[in-house]
């Protein structure tokens, strides 16, 4: 009796296990497959097709890629846009790693005010980049911008320039704004990494006569290196995803004078405002960006494995 229930149980379980697994997994698989995974795969395929309007007419080989790299204005725009992404990434990662780490280290000594300060640093991170872009545009505005006024009032008026409005400084300013917004994340992640070792180790290092620099090199740095790698990866992906912030500041053409033109904006123009073979060239560009990200991710993971041995 007991045995027969057990086998029956086993049989029903095996059947129902499959049925239940299907019921549980299919909703996510279908929705994700339809709206995220299919478009991803299709983008790669579409880049190799010749398009007439919205219908594919033939296989294009690398034709769309050739167009992207040789036909004016894509060729110059693509180069400068990707360059802007890379500059933006480099500036952001330097500022965020440096200041994120400094703030995290300093917060260790602030037992009482720590949570409050962390909340303040993280607050801008919660706001949409659109809001942040408009906000800084208003604040740095030369007509009534408070920054302009404050510099004038303190006699530093000639330091002021319309940083977001002139093409020589716009990109640097944009990356500083973005760092201002997202500094909370590196700060929190570094703080969490630093908290993983007990404070006795710092005390012990101090007693053994470690200087501040030595403590940094041999205790803090190895501890935060993996976090720094993760942050580098996240910032790289975010830099190539950049769209909202330059859109809010300089519109779809990356004003002033294309100084804020980044890959995201160029892709948008190619894909949704262009004419002709937009689907093909747009997809080719998307594929290229995907390859850049893939290469960087692979390189970083490879480097991290190397670094684990040395740091």
């Amino acid at each position, binding site marked *: 009796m007991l045995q027969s229930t057990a086998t029956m149980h086993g049989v029903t379980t095996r059947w129902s296990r499959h049925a239940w697994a299907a019921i549980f997994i299919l909703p996510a698989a279908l929705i994700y497959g339809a*709206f995220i995974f299919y478009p991803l795969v299709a983008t790669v395929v579409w880049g190799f097709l010749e398009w007439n309007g919205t219908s594919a007419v033939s296989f294009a080989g690398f034709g769309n890629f050739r167009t992207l790299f040789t036909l004016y204005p894509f060729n110059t725009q693509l180069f400068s846009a990707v360059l802007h992404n890379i500059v933006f990434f480099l500036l952001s990662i330097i500022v965020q790693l440096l200041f994120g780490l400094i703030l995290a280290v300093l917060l260790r000594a602030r037992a009482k005010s720590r949570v409050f300060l962390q909340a303040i640093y993280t607050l801008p991170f919660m706001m*949409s980049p659109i809001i942040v872009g408009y906000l800084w545009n208003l604040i740095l505005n030369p007509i009534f911008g408070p920054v302009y006024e404050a510099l004038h009032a303190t006699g530093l008026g000639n330091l002021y320039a319309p940083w977001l409005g002139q093409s020589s400084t716009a990109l640097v300013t944009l990356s500083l704004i973005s760092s201002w917004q997202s500094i909370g994340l590196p700060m929190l992640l570094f703080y969490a990494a630093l908290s993983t070792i007990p404070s006795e180790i710092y005390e012990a290092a101090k007693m053994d006569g470690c200087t501040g620099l030595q403590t940094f090199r041999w205790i803090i740095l190895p501890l935060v290196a993996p976090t720094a790698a993760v942050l580098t990866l996240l910032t790289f992906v975010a830099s190539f995803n950049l769209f909202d912030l330059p859109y809010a500041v300089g519109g779809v053409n990356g004003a002033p004078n294309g100084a804020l033109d980044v890959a995201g904006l160029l892709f948008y123009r190619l894909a949704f405002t262009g004419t002709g073979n937009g689907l093909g060239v747009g997809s080719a560009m998307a594929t290229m960006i995907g390859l850049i990200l893939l290469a960087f991710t692979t390189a970083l993971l490879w480097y991290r494995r190397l670094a684990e041995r040395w740091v």
Partner: protein
Amino acid sequence: MSEESTIAAPRKNSRAHKRRAERQPYRKPGQSIGRVVVWGYACIALAPLILVLVNSFRPTADFVSNPVGFPTHLYLDNYKVALSQGNFFAIISNSLLYAGVGAIVATFISVLAAYALARWNVRGGSVIVIIFLSGLMIPIQYSALPLFQEFSKFGLVDSRIGIILFYAASGVPFSTYVLLPFCRQLPKDLEDAAMLDGASLGSAFFRVMLPLLRPGIVAVAMFNFMPLWNQFFYPLILLRSPDKFPISVGLTSFFGEHSVDFGPLFAALVVSAVPLVAIFMIGVRKIVDGLATGGVK
């Protein structure tokens, strides 16, 4: 405790002196610089937000002549203009609808999938997991072309259901990433016990396991909500009629129309920032801890 300190202690006759002597040597100067830096940066983080808030209560003419200053009286016209012309009630409720329902659906379908994938040895399960998680690293906006064509084929362009479905899909990678390990660590005995009592796998999940997953589910839903609330690119291309815009797209059209009347722009920024700032303040501890422990997005 070393020998030296026990010998040295009696030499310092007052207790207060001893305490100061212990604390002072290297910490004091470093600490005060540290204090200046952390509070100074707090000002840099907050000042722009406060400036916008303060200026939103001042007439345009007032802050054009004097950008840094306090409101002289309670001036609410900026808000009146913003709320009446910017249609902010409508676009905020749109955002709540899209991001709220999107986050709930994303979390619900992901917890089901993560549970089955983590515990039931599904054939091909690891492939599904890899495909789900690959969504974490891909720059999602670059696959907009096929998505847009798919949407127009199914009549989903400019549809609220379409944008919610897309939002739900975009939350799957992150949710699975967090919920998979969460589901794995649940005790197996509970599920077995429920099934010996005659429950099916499904009802064992809903009646016994789901309550155990609740803290994880709430956190995941919250972290799904925030990026969806801020989402700009996809509503920009997938929606057409202004009355369906979420806050981000609505804000850009408001800024486009009011580019010279600055007062209402400040008010509009405040109005659009308030909902998320409020959520942040309510859940600040959870959000900060969640971000720190790998709830990275």
